[in-house]
């Protein structure tokens, strides 16, 4: 029982990263109809930025947790204005080429400067050690990640469901053209929403730094699973992306724990789940078929 709870907790922690990344992808896709293949690179930049800030300028984790998402959000907004917004009128193939190209550029810039080996990032002193959760001990830092991510998801949900900004974003996500006909300048919201999604990826990266190996390819490894998560949750569904993120974290953790003799099964479980979900619900668990504009 204790083992099961521990695996479950670990699954929720890795699910938290999936949820943060998938949430950003979902709001970006919803508002821009752009699938951002560069999302993993921004996650990597978040982690690397935290590492560089600490090792070269002595900036602590807590400051990086604020600085990196804001800086990457601003970088995202600049990229949206410079190139991403041109995608709306082009064939979706250009969406792939541009964002995948951005990934390669960002990865190689980091590789050139810092090489491919992993860099260590110390867990902040306040969060080192472990917490006694009654049945078992659990690393304090992981408890922090889970609590922080859940709070953040609740805050995003609150903004989306209870504020004027959220109302406009939901309406524009569902039916952009109709929303313009109701006097709302949808275009004005596109750049900040893109920046917000990128900021979340950067935040996930900073959170990952003390826990995962910080290297230029860390985002590339993760993003494939995150895309499966987004598809399972339903492309563009904000709630679906978060729920599927935590769900897939659990599936992976349980698979690794109980199917460790069959590594092929546990490694491919995510994609098997995705295939089954798509056969059953082609628009994903919480997705809706595209409405006409």
């Amino acid at each position, binding site marked *: 029982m204790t083992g099961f709870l521990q695996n479950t907790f670990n699954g929720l922690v890795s699910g938290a990263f999936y949820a943060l990344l998938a949430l950003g992808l979902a709001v970006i896709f919803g508002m821009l109809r752009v699938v951002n293949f560069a999302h993993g690179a921004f996650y990597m930049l978040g982690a690397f930025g935290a590492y560089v800030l600490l090792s070269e300028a002595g900036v602590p984790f807590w400051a990086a947790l604020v600085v990196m998402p804001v800086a990457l959000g601003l970088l995202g907004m600049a990229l949206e204005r410079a190139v991403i917004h041109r995608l709306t009128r082009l064939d979706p193939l250009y969406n792939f080429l541009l964002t995948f190209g951005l990934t390669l550029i960002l990865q190689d810039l980091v590789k050139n400067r810092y090489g491919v080996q992993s860099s260590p990032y110390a867990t902040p002193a306040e969060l080192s050690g472990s917490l006694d959760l009654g049945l078992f001990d659990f690393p304090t830092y992981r408890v922090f990640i889970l609590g922080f991510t859940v709070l953040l998801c609740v805050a995003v949900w609150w903004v989306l469901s209870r504020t004027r900004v959220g109302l406009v974003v939901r309406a524009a*996500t569902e039916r952009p053209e109709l929303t*313009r006909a109701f*006097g*709302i300048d949808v275009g004005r919201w596109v750049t900040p929403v893109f920046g917000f999604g990128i900021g979340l990826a950067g935040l996930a990266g900073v959170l990952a730094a003390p826990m995962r190996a910080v290297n230029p390819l860390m985002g590339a490894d993760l993003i494939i699973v995150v895309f499966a998560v987004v598809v399972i949750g339903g492309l563009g569904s904000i709630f679906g992306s978060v729920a599927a993120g935590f769900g897939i974290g659990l599936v992976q953790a349980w698979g690794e724990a109980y199917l460790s003799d069959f590594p092929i099964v546990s490694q491919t479980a995510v994609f098997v789940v995705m295939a089954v979900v798509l056969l059953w619900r082609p628009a994903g668990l919480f997705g809706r078929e595209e*409405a006409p504009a």
Partner: protein
Amino acid sequence: MLRIDNLSAWYGQARVLREVSLDVSAGEVVTLVGRNGAGKSTLLRCVMGLHPGRSGVIALDGRDVSRLPAHRRARLGLGWVPDDRGSYATLTVTENLTLPPRVGPDPWPLERVYEAFPALYDRRASAATMLSGGEQQMLALARVLRMGARLLLCDEPTEGLSPLLVRQVADLLRQAKRHGVTVLLVEQNLHFATGVADRHYLLAEGRIAEAMDNSEVRSRERELLAYLGI
């Protein structure tokens, strides 16, 4: 209030409107009748700014708005009632109503909307797409009244509605007209059209074929119905 001059519109290579000119005075209710594919909906979409391929002038209160994006036109007082009713599945009924900003001199307060539409009040927290077709049509009309739009662009507001609901829509449009609201209406139901409108344009193959008043439509009803294929 609305003046359209030499409006032409295309879908790719296909020309669907040919040099259409018409005008609608403030406080008037004017219908566009015509067969399916005659270009009625395209004309409304051009006025709203939702159809990119077009030439000609669309003037609102004497001001050329044909280069303004849709959201700017809405803020000048255009109220869009789309043919699919434009309900948002991810928004509640109340959110559907309060999404558009108030644009006109006489926006309906939410309480007044709910007094006029008790069925919407009962379903105010439901997703808009969970409502019946008739309720969604009421929601679409209620939404532009809450905006305070001065010129309503209604694309077949009675389509698929029961006779009782058609009468309700007619009452509502007459009530709006009494408050000075102008309406440009696409309609196939001639009985409904003559009940609410002052004038009618018959659109055929992208052109204005005839301009008619109510008595003319009534006296030629049989001929027109046969022409419209109803």
